[in-house]
C-alpha cells in the first residue's frame, strides 16, 4: 500500500522535525560489473519513436557511466505470426524500428537481442493497450509545492494537472512522462574561471571574484532548455475503473522565470509487468525514508537471458499507445522567490570598457537538453 505509506513517511518526517533529524549518510558501494540496462517502448508515435536502448551501466568512483555495446543484433518478433523485424542501430546503443513499422493491436511482441559475447535475451510478450485521450490539462501556482533540498523552506511551482476518462471494465495501468521547455537566458556557467571564445570553454582561470565564484554567460540568440521529467508517475485504475479521473498531478514546474513555459505530457497505458517494474523503481528511489520502508530488491523487469537464467537485466520492453498534449504555463499568478534554473542567482561577468568583446555571448548548441529552435506551440 505504497501511497498510504507516503503519508506515514510524512508523519514521521514531521516528528523528526520536532525531535529528530535527517542527515546525509556515507555509504560504500562496490559495484563489480557492468550491468546490462534495457529501456524502451515500441510506440505508435511513428513520427517520434522512442529509442530502445541496450547499454551497459557502470558505477565508478561515485559516478555512473553509460557504455554503448557495439554490434548488438536486436529485433522485434511478432509472436502470433512469427515475423521478425530487425531494429535499426543508432549511435550510443540506441535502436529504432524501421520507419514503415506499424504495431498490430492484436499482436504480441517480444524484443530479442544478442550481445557480441553470445548471450541472447528476450523480453516477455507485450501487447498494446488502448490509451484514453487526455481531456484537459491545467495548472495552478502553488507557493508550497515542494520542500527545498535542505528541507528548510518551500519552493513555488506551477502544479500541472490533467483529466482523462478511464476505460471501463478493464484493468488499466498508466504511466505519464512530460517534457518541459523553458526559454533560458544564460547558456553557460563558468566556475572559478571565465568563458573563452577561442576555446569555447571556461578556460580563463580566475583567482578572485567579487561576490560569487562563478560567472553566467548569456545565450547568443534564443535558446530553450529541454527538461525531461524525472519523477516516476504511475497509476492503477483500481479505485477509478471507468471514471472521469480529474486533477491527476503530473508535474511541478519550478518558478524559474516570470514568463511562461511549455509542457508536453505523454499519457500511456502500460502492461501490468511494466507497471510492476516502474512501481519497484518508484518504491526504491522516491518512496523511501520513512518508518516503514519496503525492503530493497533488484529492479529486474521483463527481459530474460535465455542462455543464462541467473543473469539479471535491469529494464523492460513495452508496447504502448501514446496520447500527448501540450500545455502553456503562463505563470500569470506566479510570485515570490525564483527557483533558479541554474541553481543559483545569475551573475553576469562585469563589462570591461577596455575590452568590448567581453562579456561574450555563448552559442546555444542543439543537444538532448537544449535547442535554439522555438518549440511547437510556444507562445
Amino acid at each position, binding site marked *: *500500500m505504497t*501511497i*498510504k505509506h507516503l*503519508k506515514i513517511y*510524512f*508523519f*514521521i518526517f*514531521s*516528528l*523528526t*522535525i520536532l*525531535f*529528530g*533529524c*535527517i*542527515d*546525509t*549518510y556515507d*555509504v560504500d558501494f562496490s*559495484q*563489480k560489473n557492468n550491468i546490462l*540496462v534495457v*529501456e524502451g517502448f515500441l510506440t505508435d508515435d511513428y513520427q517520434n519513436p522512442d529509442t530502445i536502448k541496450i547499454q551497459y*551501466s557502470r*558505477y565508478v568512483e561515485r559516478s*555512473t*557511466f553509460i557504455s554503448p555495446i557495439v554490434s548488438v543484433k536486436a529485433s522485434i518478433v511478432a509472436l502470433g505470426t512469427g515475423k521478425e523485424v530487425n531494429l535499426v542501430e543508432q549511435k550510443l546503443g540506441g535502436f529504432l524500428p524501421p520507419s514503415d513499422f506499424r504495431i498490430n493491436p492484436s499482436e504480441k511482441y517480444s524484443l530479442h537481442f544478442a550481445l557480441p559475447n553470445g548471450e541472447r535475451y528476450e523480453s516477455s510478450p507485450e501487447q498494446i493497450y488502448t490509451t484514453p485521450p487526455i481531456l484537459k490539462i491545467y495548472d495552478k501556482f502553488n507557493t*508550497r509545492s515542494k520542500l527545498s*533540498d535542505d528541507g528548510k523552506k518551500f519552493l513555488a511551482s506551477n502544479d500541472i494537472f490533467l483529466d482523462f476518462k478511464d476505460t471501463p471494465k478493464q484493468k488499466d495501468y498508466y504511466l505519464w512522462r512530460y517534457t518541459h521547455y523553458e526559454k533560458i537566458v544564460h547558456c553557460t556557467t563558468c566556475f572559478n574561471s571565465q568563458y573563452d571564445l577561442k576555446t569555447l570553454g571556461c578556460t580563463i582561470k580566475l583567482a578572485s571574484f567579487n561576490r560569487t565564484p562563478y560567472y553566467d554567460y548569456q545565450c547568443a540568440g534564443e535558446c530553450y532548455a529541454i527538461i*525531461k521529467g*524525472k519523477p516516476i508517475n504511475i497509476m492503477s485504475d*483500481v*479505485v*477509478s475503473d*471507468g*471514471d472521469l*479521473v*480529474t*486533477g491527476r*498531478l503530473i508535474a511541478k514546474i519550478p518558478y524559474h522565470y516570470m514568463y511562461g513555459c511549455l509542457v508536453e505530457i505523454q499519457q500511456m497505458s502500460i502492461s*501490468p509487468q511494466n507497471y*510492476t517494474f516502474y*512501481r*519497484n*523503481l518508484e518504491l*526504491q*528511489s522516491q518512496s*523511501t*525514508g*520513512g*518508518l*516503514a*520502508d519496503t*525492503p*530493497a*530488491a*533488484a*529492479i529486474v523487469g521483463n527481459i530474460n537471458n535465455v542462455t543464462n537464467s541467473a543473469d*539479471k537485466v*535491469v529494464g523492460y520492453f513495452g508496447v504502448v499507445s501514446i496520447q500527448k498534449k501540450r500545455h502553456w504555463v503562463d505563470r500569470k499568478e506566479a510570485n515570490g522567490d525564483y527557483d533558479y534554473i541554474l541553481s543559483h542567482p545569475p551573475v553576469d561577468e562585469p563589462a570591461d570598457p577596455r575590452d568590448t568583446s567581453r562579456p561574450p555571448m555563448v552559442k546555444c548548441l542543439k543537444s538532448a537538453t537544449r535547442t535554439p529552435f522555438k518549440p511547437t506551440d510556444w507562445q
Partner: protein
Amino acid sequence: MKIKILIPFLLFFLIRLSGFSQQSNVVTIIVKDSSDNMPLKDVVIKIDARRANLSTNNEGVHSFFLPPGEYGLTISHFGYRTFRQKLIMNNSEVNLAISLINIAKELDEVTVSSQSINGNVSRPLLGVSSLSIKAIKKIPAMMGETDVLRGLQMLPGVTSVGEAANGVNIRGGTTDQNLILLDDTPIFNPTHLFGLFSIFPPDAVSGLELYKGGIPAKFGGRASSVIDINMINPSLDKFKMTGGISLVSNRLTIEQPIIKEKLAIMVSGRASFNDFFFKLGPPKLQNIKANFYDLATKLFYKMNAKNTFTFSGYLSKDFFQTDLLGTIGNVNATSTQYDYQTENAALKWFHAFNSKLNLQTTAVYTNYQPKTLLPELNSDNKVSLESGIVYNQLKSSLNYNLNEKHRLEGGISTILYRINPGILNPGNSKSVNYRSVPEERSTESGIYLEDEFTVNKKLSLSVGLRYSFYNALGGTVRNYNPLLSKSDLSVIDSTVYKSNETSASYGGFEPRIALKYSLSELSSIKLGYSLMRQYLQVVSNTTTPLPTSRWATSNTYIKPQISELYSGGIFKNSRNNIYEFSLEGYYRNTENVLDFKPGADFLFQPYIETQTLQGKGKAYGVELMASKKKGEITGWINYTYSRALNQIKQSGRFDEQINGGTWYNTNYDRPHSFNATVSISQGSHHEFGFTFVYNTGRPFTVPEGFVEYNNVKYPYYVERNNDRIKDYHRLDFSWTIRNPSMQKKRWEGSWTFAVYNLYGRANAYSVYLRSENGLKAYQLTIFGSPIPSLTYNFKFM
C-alpha cells in the same frame, strides 16, 4: 528529605570530644529487625551523610550528643533497607526506636522473573518473564509516558526495529508472531501514533507475563511468543483514584466499590489532546492533528465464594491528519486522515467446584478498525478506505490440583475470524468507485491438556499437548499454472465456495514440554521444547507493520506458520532471593514464514498469494540476565546474543526467491543486545532511575551501485540486508519526587523529571536513498537529541 550539607562534620566531632555535655542534647537510638523485633548490632549511623564511626552495641543501642540544629540521620545495615530521617535538636533529649526492614523479607521491588519467590528456579518454566507495572514505572519514560512495550524491550530476547516500531520482535520472531493479550483480548495494533507510544494505559495495568520459551498449552495461534497483560482488579473495599499529566497525555483511573466486598468497577482513561504544539512549530506542521485516547474498564462481581464474574473492556482510538501529501490512488484530497480504533471486551466466569478444581469460561470480542479518510477538494465529501478484523472467541479451562505432584489444566477454545481486507467508500465522489474485497472468514479451534508433574524433589516436568485445527470458510480459490509464478496471468480456473463451506483446512498437534532439574535449593537447569502453529498474520512488506496494515488468515496457498523452539537454561538465585541469575539458550526453526514479492501491492487484492512468498526462518541465541529485586538499589542487566535469518525459495523462479534463495538477515536481526535498568530509592521521597540500552544496528540494504536509467540514477540492489546501520545506544534518566509536601494526606502527588536519550545520541532509525535531487543516502533519526519531560502523578486513597 532535606539534607543539610553546611554542618561541618569536624565540628560535630570537636564538640563531642571536647566533652560538650548537655544531657538535653543526647540522642539515643535503638535499632531492631522489623520482622522479629530482635536488636541489631553494628548498625552504621551517619550524621549529615558523613560516616561518624557510630554503631550500635549488642542491644542495638547507641547514644551520642548533638548540638542544637538540623541534621540528616542515616541508619544502614547490610541486608536491611536504609533508614533516613531529619533530626532536629533543640536542647531536648531525643529517643528513637527504629525498625529496619529486612530486605529478604520484603516484597519484590522489581519483578522481572517468574512471579513467585524462587519460582524461576523451582518451577519448570523456561523463557518466562514477569514484569510488574511497578517495575515498568521505574523505567525512565519517553516524554513522560509509561510504556509497557518499551519496558518489555529491557528484557533479554526482546528487540524492535527502532524507536518508532509498531511492535516488538521476540527471539527472532516478527511482530505479528507475538500474541498480545490484554485481559484475554487480543491486540492487533499495540501502539499509538504510529509506534511512538504503546496503547496500554499504565494506571490500568497490573503487569505482564512474557512467554518467549515454554509457552503454556492454553495459548495458541502465534509462532513466537505470548505477551499476557493484565489489568488491575478494582478494589472491593475502598475508593481509589490515580492519574497524571504529561506533555503527551492526561490520565485518570478510578476504582469504585459498588457493593462493598461484592461488586466494584475500575475505569481508566487517557487522552492526548496536546497537538496544539504543532501550531507552534514550522508553518508546514501547523495543519497537523495527532491525537489519541484509550479507555479501559473492569467490572468485578464476587457472587459468592465459588463464583466470580469479570468484565473487561478496552477502547482505543487514534486520529492523525496531514495536508501536505498526495492521496490514495487518484482521489483528489485536501488532506489525509488516519483514524483507527480498537474495541475489546471479555466476560469471564470463574467457578470453583472445590479447593482443587475450578473452571474458567471466557467470551472474547475484539474489533480492530483502521480507516483512512480523504476529504475531497472543493467538497464536503470524504472518501474512506476501511478495513478491519473482528475476533470472537469462546474458551473454557479446567484447573485441577490432583495432588501435590500433579497440577492439571485442560481446556477448549474456538475463534471466529472475520476480516475485512478493504472497502473503498466513495461517499458522493464522482471520480472514485465503491470497491471492496470480499470478507475472509475462518475458524481456529484448540483443545489442550497440561500437567505440571513434580516427579521428586529435584525433577519436575510440565507436559502439555495442544491440538489446533483451522478452517478457511467460503471465498474463491484460484487454480494457477504451476509452471508460472502465481499472478492474474497464470490463473487456470477457480472454485467458488459457499460462505460456510471449508475452502482450506489445516491442523496438528502442538506439544509443549519443559523439564526442571534442581541442582540445589537455589539453582536448577531446565530444558524445553514447544511447537506453535500460526494461522493469522499481518500482510505488510515494510520494516514494521503500519496500523493500517492488512491482516490475513491462512488459505489454500498461505500455509500456516509452524515454529519449533528448543531451549535450555541454568537458573540461580542468591540465598535470600535478592539476586537472580539466568543463562538461557534457544534455537527456533519456523516453516512458512511470510515474505513478499518485490513491489507487492495488497490494496484491494483479493488473492494475496499473488503478492506473497513463503519460506523458512531460523533464530538462535543466548540470553544472560542478572537482577536485583529488593533493596534501595534494584534493577537488572542482561546481554543477548541472537540471530534471526530467513530463506525464501518458493520455486526456482527469480521472482519467487529472495536473495536467490539463500539465507539472509531479517530486518530485526540484531546480534548483540545489552540492557541495564537501575532504580535508586533514596528514602520514601526520592527515586532515581537509569536505563542504558545497546543494540547492534539493524540490517539494511546497500546497493551494489547505481544504474542510469531514463537519464536518472537508480540504486542497483543485489542482496537484501547486506549491511547494518550504526549501533544503537542510549541512556535515560529519571528523578521522581514523591509527596513533596511530606505530609500524610489522602491526596499524594509526585513529580517525575525524565530525560530520554540523555547524551543526545543520534541513533539511526533507517538509512535510505532518494533520487529526486541526485541520488543521495540519508539517515533518519527519530530522536536525535535529549528529550526532557516533566510529569505530575497523583493518587487519592
